[in-house]
């Protein structure tokens, strides 16, 4: 299978008054055709900024992509001009966000917002676009499509709005859908509906999905391949089953152990001590070292790089380097 998206050595920095924040620090990942790749991480891990960098949505002058390559279908997105990027964005790459309410224009009717990409990218006439818009509303499981097309965003619930966002995203049949915490603001029963729908669209159209989430349950349910981020770095990646059954990095292990699982009760939850480091105070080291139970001297002074750990997994940890024969 070919790679739809290839990110290599991506670095995205934010220049603040206190110093430079390396929100994304030398990150690489691939998304193959028809595959769902999940980036999982906690707040401040850089998972959303990675997605924003792909979409060219990192806002200057404070933030900018400092280096690396983002290839979509072989084209380096970072080398494209504004107009060239516009022909791809919202067309071949679409994105949905956590807050559908803030992503939609509050003064435009739902139907008009659905028609916009169809007219812009598919060069449809207004009439044809409206017809297609109404079909799309039906496809994302909303009844009374005509009536909804003439409603404003505030008249719909959060779950319905997210369906509309998905309808807009898939309207131009994208090759890649980037979904940034698409169900985090929704109730579990609605989340189940939305995840089912995303999976179904993926099966039908063969599009790839880059799904960003903090919820390990969602990852287990959706992902083919998982990338774990911590403090702007990829610390571990691998096929979903291998990674969940045999996590290598102490952070991944801790994360999996600290999540309460339904019908599997423990007396005391495992918890990772301490908290995410201040991004302004990072020195060359493993960024997880002060929370890690296996911390060695080398972890405090040198940064481990992502290396093959067998089983299709890659891990950035000095413990791994010791055990693999050189």
């Amino acid at each position: 299978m070919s790679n739809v998206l290839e990110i290599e050595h991506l670095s995205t920095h934010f220049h603040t008054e206190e110093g430079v924040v390396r929100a994304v620090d030398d990150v690489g990942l691939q998304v193959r055709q028809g595959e769902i790749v999940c980036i999982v991480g906690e707040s401040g891990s850089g998972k959303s900024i990675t997605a924003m960098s792909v979409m060219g949505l990192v806002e200057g002058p404070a933030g900018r992509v400092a280096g690396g390559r983002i290839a979509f279908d072989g084209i380096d997105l970072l080398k494209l001009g504004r107009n060239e990027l516009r022909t791809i964005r919202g067309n071949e790459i679409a994105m949905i966000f956590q807050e559908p309410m803030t992503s939609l224009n509050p003064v435009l009717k739902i139907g008009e917002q659905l028609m916009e990409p169809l007219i812009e990218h598919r060069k449809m006439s207004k009439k044809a676009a409206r017809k297609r818009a109404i079909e799309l509303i039906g496809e994302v499981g909303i009844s009374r499509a005509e009536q909804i097309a003439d409603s404003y965003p505030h008249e719909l619930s959060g779950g319905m709005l997210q369906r509309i966002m998905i309808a807009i995203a898939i309207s131009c049949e994208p090759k890649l859908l980037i979904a940034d915490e698409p169900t985090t603001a929704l109730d579990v029963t609605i989340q189940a509906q939305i995840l089912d729908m995303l999976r179904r669209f993926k099966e039908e159209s063969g599009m790839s999905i880059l799904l960003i989430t903090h919820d390990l349950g969602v990852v287990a349910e959706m992902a083919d391949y998982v990338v774990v981020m911590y403090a702007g770095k990829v610390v571990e990646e691998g096929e979903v089953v291998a990674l969940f059954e045999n996590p290598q990095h102490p952070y991944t292990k801790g994360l999996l152990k600290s999540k309460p699982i339904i019908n599997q009760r423990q007396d005391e939850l495992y918890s990772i001590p301490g908290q995410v480091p201040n991004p302004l105070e990072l020195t060359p080291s493993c960024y997880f070292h002060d929370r890690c139970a296996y911390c060695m001297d080398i972890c405090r002074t040198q940064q481990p790089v992502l290396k093959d750990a067998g089983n299709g997994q890659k891990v950035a940890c000095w413990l791994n380097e010791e055990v693999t024969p050189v």
Partner: protein
Amino acid sequence: MTEAQALLEVNGLKKYFPIKSGLLSRTVGHVKAVDDISFSIKRGETFGLVGESGSGKSTVGRTILRLTDKTAGEVKFGGVDLYDLQPDELRRLRPKMQLIFQDPYSSLNPRVRIGDAIGEALLDHGLASPTEVRGRVLDVLNACGLSSYHFDRFPHEFSGGQRQRVGIARALVLNPDLIIADEPVSALDVSIQAQIINLFRGMQEKQGLTYLFISHDLSVVEHLCSHIGVMYLGTMMETGPRDELFRDPLHPYTKALLSAVPVPIPKLKRERIVLNGELPNPADPPPGCKFHTRCPFAVARCREEVPLFRDVGNDRKVACHLV
């Protein structure tokens, strides 16, 4: 009062919010945010109140504490109906019932040092003299996993997890009997969430606290709570001891809710009950059983007749015609 007696007893609690409309703001209807809810919590127990947004679970917590007035029903705390108390009597009882919010940051004054914010309530209620306050606050800070130097810090200097520790410290310093925690770990990252859940449990073991734990996250609730109540559109659908309720949920809504929670085990294939449609408008809830519009098992009777919330044995209650 014996150990087995209920510390908190809620009977037929109702809270209706009027819907006003027109030039004269006439009341044209009501949102029945809490509609005839009954449950009780024994001393030292943790009762988990779960439900989706709009289920009325937060309103239950606020109505119990008289932060908003009830429409009907009774709330007994240690045998006393809180709604029978005069304002000064209620004020004296307040330290015994504390509330912890989802985001403690919004309930902290940004210009007041953390230590003073925690100690304030002690002074207000005359529970400590000004000379004792610092010592009491330092004790509770340490108990909540914070350090003495945090006393003089301001709220913005704390991370999300630390702020929740401050919220817990502020409630605990008054030495309460009952803590109502409204989504206290929902805004936290998994690794921090586990720390706070463990803190809640540890404090309960040490001080014999009673919790009403309000949350939408069933895996957290299962972990912390001994008894569970499931709400939907202002109505209690099912209550029961945790183990029985999780092993064998009776109400179709409880079943659907449990099956919808994503589990971090990739190979696990589960029978999922996917509910159709959306939560109905709470201002205009469906007749009969409120859940019938989304229930995969609904029959004609469900559309017409409101099911009674009835005892089904083993300390369990359920409101469903089919059980």
